[in-house]
């Protein structure tokens, strides 16, 4: 079979990597080469082959696929050729191979190249029975392919649930409900500017206060030079959070003449309690060593006078000193309606005063049910959107479409892994970015398959089409993804310093998505597509997405050729 021999030559010239050729095929290649302008040249460049075309057919050329289609390709009958041959194979058994040779002989270069696609005998018109002998499936590669598919299927079936439940722990405020507060820091006094030290102290302070609120998890981060964002997932009481975080909690002890004698810095501990005799809530204060000493002196000097305790310049209590207090203990009483109030002040006093003035920029509170609803809606949108993409790829690109779908599933799994590994918070925007990134990730596959189809239409064999198609597509994918990455990185830089945009998550997902789609395209997609081609499970170009109409248009001469065979 001349076609096969030609195909092998082409491959050898074009590719460095080893392509297994089955022994059965080797045997059949005894048929002499038909006289034809080197198909290898066509393999290198379609344009050249089209200019060398023995019989140019300009009108057909345009209609088919523009410039890339050489007139030869008209004779290259991918689809129905093998139908014709399959029929002949079925009727004449072993001589079928010879009839294939006749087809290519009669139609020169084009048909010979078409044989690459045509040798599969896997067209719809070709039932399995007669091909069994010469189908030449590479079972090793087919086996690897099957293993890959099974492994992916197994991961999806068994790992999907655990992955989903793990991811559920990383839901953002918008999806599980909770409170998010963004504060802007400004100087407490003109001589105390907002330094990074002050911001770190603020973060520490907020952490203490948040822990005092009894939340199970929280995320407090500094944004830019003077902003801080506090996220309390699952927390339901925004008012409580605002009150606790927004208070400066500057504690001062003042003598009757207004002199500040003690501050919160002298405090060791504050504790809320119920006074056993009055049954009223109060806050018990314990001073540190230095504070105890000062307090003892101050009380000794001020016996019979009042010492006011002020919180943020608000008078809490103004007791009269009966005697000197050397123990370093004091009590704030009388001002609290509930134990909760006392506890809140104790919490603030324990955490200490804020080093800076804070202004609430943004307060976002999401009810748990609403968060759940948003999550469900996003997931549904995701399932529908991704489902459409998967179906579209499957129906448009057929066999490679399956590869694309597998690639997308692998892409999704790796993405989930990255999310888990780096504890990326899942936000509404993040999910949206993921879904969009899938749409963009599929572009790498589309580029490869479109290129593959072009090479097939140009009359190349499946294998050299795969090689040339991938090589060409890879450069395109690289160039456009680098540019998208540039854009996404600038987007990240922009959002990183701007908490209000709320979507650094979007930018991060986009960047990971672009990089990852590049990675899966050159590794997984390439591997699986290569296995699909070299396993020879699917050889009919129609199953590589060539349109039936074109296949039919291409088929005519070959069908006639089949009829002319001896």
């Amino acid at each position, binding site marked *: 079979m001349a076609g096969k021999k030609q195909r092998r030559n082409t491959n050898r010239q074009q590719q460095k990597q080893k392509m297994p050729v089955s022994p059965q095929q080797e045997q059949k290649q005894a048929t002499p080469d038909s006289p034809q302008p080197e198909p290898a040249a066509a393999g290198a460049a379609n344009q*050249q082959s089209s200019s060398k075309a023995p019989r140019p057919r300009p009108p057909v050329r345009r209609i088919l696929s*523009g*410039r890339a289609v050489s007139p030869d390709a008209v004779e290259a009958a991918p689809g129905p050729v093998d139908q014709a041959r399959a029929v002949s194979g079925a009727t004449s058994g072993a001589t079928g191979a010879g009839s294939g040779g006749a087809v290519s002989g009669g139609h020169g270069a084009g048909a010979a190249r078409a044989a690459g696609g045509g040798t599969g005998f896997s067209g719809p018109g070709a039932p399995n029975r007669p091909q069994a002998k010469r189908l030449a499936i590479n079972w090793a590669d087919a086996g690897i392919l099957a293993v890959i598919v099974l492994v992916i299927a197994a991961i999806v079936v068994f790992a999907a649930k655990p992955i989903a439940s793990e991811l559920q722990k990383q839901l953002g405020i918008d999806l599980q*409900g909770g409170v998010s507060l963004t504060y*802007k820091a400004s100087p407490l006094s003109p001589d105390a500017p907002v330094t990074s030290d002050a911001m770190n102290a603020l973060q520490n302070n907020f952490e203490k206060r948040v822990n005092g609120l009894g939340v199970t998890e929280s995320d407090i981060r500094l944004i830019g030079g003077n902003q801080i964002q506090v996220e309390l997932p699952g927390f339901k009481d*925004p*008012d409580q959070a605002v009150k606790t975080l927004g208070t400066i909690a500057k504690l001062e002890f003042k003598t009757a003449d207004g002199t500040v004698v003690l501050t919160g810095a002298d405090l060791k501990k504050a504790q809320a309690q119920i006074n056993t005799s009055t049954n009223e809530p109060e806050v018990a204060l314990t001073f540190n060593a230095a504070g105890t000493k000062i307090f003892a002196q101050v009380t000794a000097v001020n016996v019979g006078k009042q010492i006011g305790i002020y919180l943020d310049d608000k008078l809490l209590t103004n007791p009269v000193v009966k005697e000197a207090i050397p123990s370093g203990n004091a009590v704030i009483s009388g001002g609290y309606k509930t134990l909760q109030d006392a506890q809140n002040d104790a919490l603030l006093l324990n955490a200490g005063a804020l080093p800076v003035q804070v*202004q609430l*920029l*943004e*307060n*976002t*509170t999401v*009810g*748990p*049910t*609403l*968060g759940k609803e*948003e999550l469900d*809606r996003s997931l*549904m*949108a*995701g399932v529908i*959107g991704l489902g*459409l*993409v998967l179906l*579209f790829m499957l129906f448009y690109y057929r066999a490679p479409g399956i590869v694309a779908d597998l690639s997308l599933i692998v892409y999704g799994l790796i993405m989930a892994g990255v999310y888990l590994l780096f504890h990326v918070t899942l936000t*509404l*925007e993040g999910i*949206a970015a993921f*879904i*969009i990134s*899938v*749409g*963009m990730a*599929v*572009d790498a596959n*589309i*580029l490869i398959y*479109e290129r593959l189809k*072009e090479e097939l239409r140009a009359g190349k064999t499946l294998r050299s089409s795969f090689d040339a198609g991938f090589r060409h597509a890879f*450069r*395109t994918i690289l160039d*456009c993804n*680098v*540019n*998208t990455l*540039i*854009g*996404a990185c*600038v*987007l990240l*830089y*922009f959002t990183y*310093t*701007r908490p*209000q*945009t709320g*979507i650094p998550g979007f930018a991060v997902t*986009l960047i990971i998505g672009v990089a990852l789609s590049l990675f899966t395209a050159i590794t997984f997609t390439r591997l699986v597509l290569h296995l699909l081609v070299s396993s020879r499970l699917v050889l009919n170009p129609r199953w590589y997405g060539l349109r039936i109409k074109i296949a039919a248009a291409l088929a005519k001469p070959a069908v006639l050729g089949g009829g002319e065979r001896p």
Partner: protein
Amino acid sequence: MNLIKLRKYWYILSLLVIVPGLISLGTRHMNYGIDFTGGSQLQIQFSQPVTDAEIRAVLVDQNLPSDSEIQMSGGNKATLIRTRALTDTEDANLTNALQQKLGAVPSSQSYEKVEPVITGALIRDAALALLIAFALMLVYIGIRFEFWFGLAAIIAIFHDILVTVGLASIFWLQIDSASVAAVLTIAAYSVHDTIVIFDRIRENVKQRKKGESLDELIHHSIMQTLARSINTVMTVIFCLLALIIFGGVTIRSFMIMLLIGVISGAYSSIFNASPLWFDFKRLRSEAATTR
């Protein structure tokens, strides 16, 4: 048909979208959300359908501005109220009133209060980010392709941004700071699309046959990549439409802007970027011959 020969019409079509957008921008600006204006936004759900008027009555009852924006969704069982910045008491009172009078569900609400940001600074930073992106892309494309490809690609991006911002003004889409990010995302996507076609032109230029005019070559390059261009934009549109129709309300305007930008990006890659490159080439060769 030759797409490049018809380029005048493609430019006109772009202008037909951009110019009204710019007029709308100039005359009535944009629908700035509370991210820009400051204010409170309350998202709330009800156990049974309610009407816009019922909610407005509650607002008036609470001495809140009657021109507050009310957006109903979810079969009139969910609403989004946007009004001036509420104090904590006002917020609590409003929520209580909505729960008692209209049967709002306490756990399914979200409340957002935002101080106005300095709009100028935000826009300036976004513009700066865009300029940085443009410069980096110009350098990369200049190295891998050539300068004129880079310039054409950047003009195409600029086109998409104008289309998106203009249409957002015409359709009165709510603009929040996420919309600014949407514009930057569109820039990243648009260049992706353009490069695919430029890559093909670059390849075909290398194998250019004698007698083939540049416009034919570009036309063929576009036609060769047309299936890919359409298919890729289709997959992204599938995803965006699913998010717009079925996804959460809060990011809807963000998604609509992305949708506009993506469609514009696909258009400009085919009908603007390549013709522009042709014009650059033509003008340069004309300049060279007259010299």
